[in-house]
């Protein structure tokens, strides 16, 4: 267990350093970058990635992967707007959808643990089932339903100058850090990701831990989809598509091992901020979405490279 600590801390620190340097650079280039309204906007954007990647972090730490994130996100946004149209209370809808996301994740987790289906396959299959349902309820990628008011308030209302969602995100980040570092669940999660057999022999409830990670991913993805629909003001079938990539990229940039067993949610938070700052920085160079893709790819390679060097240094 102690093996993780020296590797985890520098990786998270490096991720925040990279994010901070990028932000400083962007502010020097255009001082408006650090204006209150722009910062608020960046925080909201980062929170979408942050929530989509919250469960992904837990799943990856446990040695798995969740490829159903985009479709569960779309489910969160689309189903809430449908229920809203039917007159259901938004608060109830949000709670129900987070529970449904969690239930879908639980099914994925059971498939991975009890049926021994490889995580990639199980979550592609789950994503396909959810996509099928969304197609059935009749929202093609071209048509859009308006977003519910509750979701809009979460991303638009501010308290003490910060968007409401920033506080929610902070609360979840603190909770995730506590869960990972201070609880038996967290220790079992790292142990499972590092070496499942050893973890089982050491008495960790490996299967329960893995199922919990997928359940968290489903719940967090549904919530991220609700947030996204609130910001965009509408919902559509492919709304979650970019988050398949960015939820994994945030975890990788945050310094976690994609094989599991090492990493932290704070690293992912830094990764989400890094990706968001980059997305906002490139247009100031007149570089479009094509370059954003290229830079994202290079950042992943760079982050993984830095972490390998850091890990080698830490291991002597």
């Amino acid at each position, binding site marked *: 267990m102690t093996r993780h600590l020296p590797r985890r801390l520098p990786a998270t620190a490096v991720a925040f350093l990279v994010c901070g340097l990028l932000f400083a650079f962007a502010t020097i280039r255009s001082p408006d970058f650090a204006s209150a309204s722009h910062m608020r906007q960046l925080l909201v954007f980062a929170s979408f990635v942050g929530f989509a990647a919250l469960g992904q972090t837990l799943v990856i730490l446990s040695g798995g992967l969740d490829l159903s994130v985009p479709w569960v996100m779309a489910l969160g946004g689309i189903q809430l707007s449908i229920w809203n149209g039917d007159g259901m209370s938004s608060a109830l809808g949000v709670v129900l959808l987070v529970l449904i996301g969690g239930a879908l994740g639980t099914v994925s987790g059971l498939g991975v643990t009890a049926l021994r289906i*490889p995580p*990639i396959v199980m979550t*592609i299959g789950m994503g396909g089932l959810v996509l099928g349902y969304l*197609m059935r309820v009749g929202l093609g990628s071209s048509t859009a339903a308006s977003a519910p008011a509750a979701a809009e308030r979460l991303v638009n209302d501010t308290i003490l100058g910060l968007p409401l969602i920033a506080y929610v995100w902070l609360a979840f980040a603190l909770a995730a850090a506590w869960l990972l570092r201070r609880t038996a669940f967290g220790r079992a999660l790292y142990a499972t990701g590092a070496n499942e057999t050893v973890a089982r022999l050491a008495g960790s409830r490996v299967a329960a831990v893995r199922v919990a990670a997928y359940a968290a991913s489903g719940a967090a993805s549904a919530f991220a989809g609700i947030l996204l629909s609130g910001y965009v003001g509408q919902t559509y079938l492919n709304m979650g598509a970019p988050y398949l990539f960015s939820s*994994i990229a945030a975890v990788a940039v945050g310094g976690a091992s994609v094989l599991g067993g090492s990493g932290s949610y704070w690293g992912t938070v830094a990764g989400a901020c890094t990706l968001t700052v980059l997305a906002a920085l490139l247009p100031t160079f007149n570089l479009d979405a094509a370059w954003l*893709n290229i830079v994202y790819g290079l950042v992943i390679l760079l982050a993984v490279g830095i972490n390998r060097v850091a890990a080698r240094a830490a291991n002597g």
Partner: protein
Amino acid sequence: MSALAASVRDAGFVLKRLPRGEWGTPLLLATLIVVDVSIQPALLDVTQIGLLIQTALVAVLLATAQTLAVLARGVDLSVGSVLVVTDVLTATKLGGLEGDRLALLPLVLAVGAAIGLLNGALIAYGGLEPFVATLATWAIFDGVALLVLPTDGGAPPQQLTNLAIGETAGIPNSYIGLALVLLAWFALRRSPLGVRVLAVGSDAERAFLNGIDVRRTKLIVYTLGGFVAGIAGVYLAASTSTGVPTAGDGLLLPSLAAVVIGGTSLAGGRGGVGLSVMGVFVLVFIGDLVAALQLPSWVATVASAAMLLIVVSLRSLPQVLARKETA
């Protein structure tokens, strides 16, 4: 009593054989074909089948590239991005406003192989996980494709289009394309390289101890995969007569699904392109059946996902049962 015991033993034998996917996949595919043909007998026609193969060929090529990576105990998330790069190059550099430059086709194919080479180098010599390396190149080359052609358009050479959708001596060229893919695979499988790929995939350490250059083998595998995915891009542009820089978005997950339904093990070293091609056609016939029954398109999506999960569960069943017995 002994007959019962024998039949139970037979059932156990059947289950044990399933993981290899040696007959389970052909049986599944044959069933789907029989049902589909009985519903729409008009399908039994050289031209109709040719069209079916034509629409499936891009998925076949991507599944082939994916299979190579999976056999070597890896994964290639960049197949879709290699496809879009060669797709837009075909639409803008080979064809386009200034006339056709078919002589550049080998260069376009070399670009696909070069991206594969980069994947292989990052994985074999850079020591990156296949998942991470190809996640990065996926993003990078999706971006490159958008730089080459920001929106749908371009004009692939007419000759390539004729080749892709035409016919030779009354046989649609798509048959020939499919046959070439399978022939190339069976040749590779029997070659020393094919043996090395399977050896590296099943146990890299043992392969190394047996004198196999593991890194070089992985480098070749991903280069070959890039080359094949590149052909898929050229074929897509040619057969649709246009370039689409985002065409790869929806193709990655189906390529993995086809490999898995076919029966190639994600743990490496077991399976093959022949199985993955069957996996592709399982998905194709599910879609075709749903269309024939005039069901809404969501049914095909749900059925494909359910098929994936059912097939994989059945394959892992013997393993799960065996574990229960020992526990």
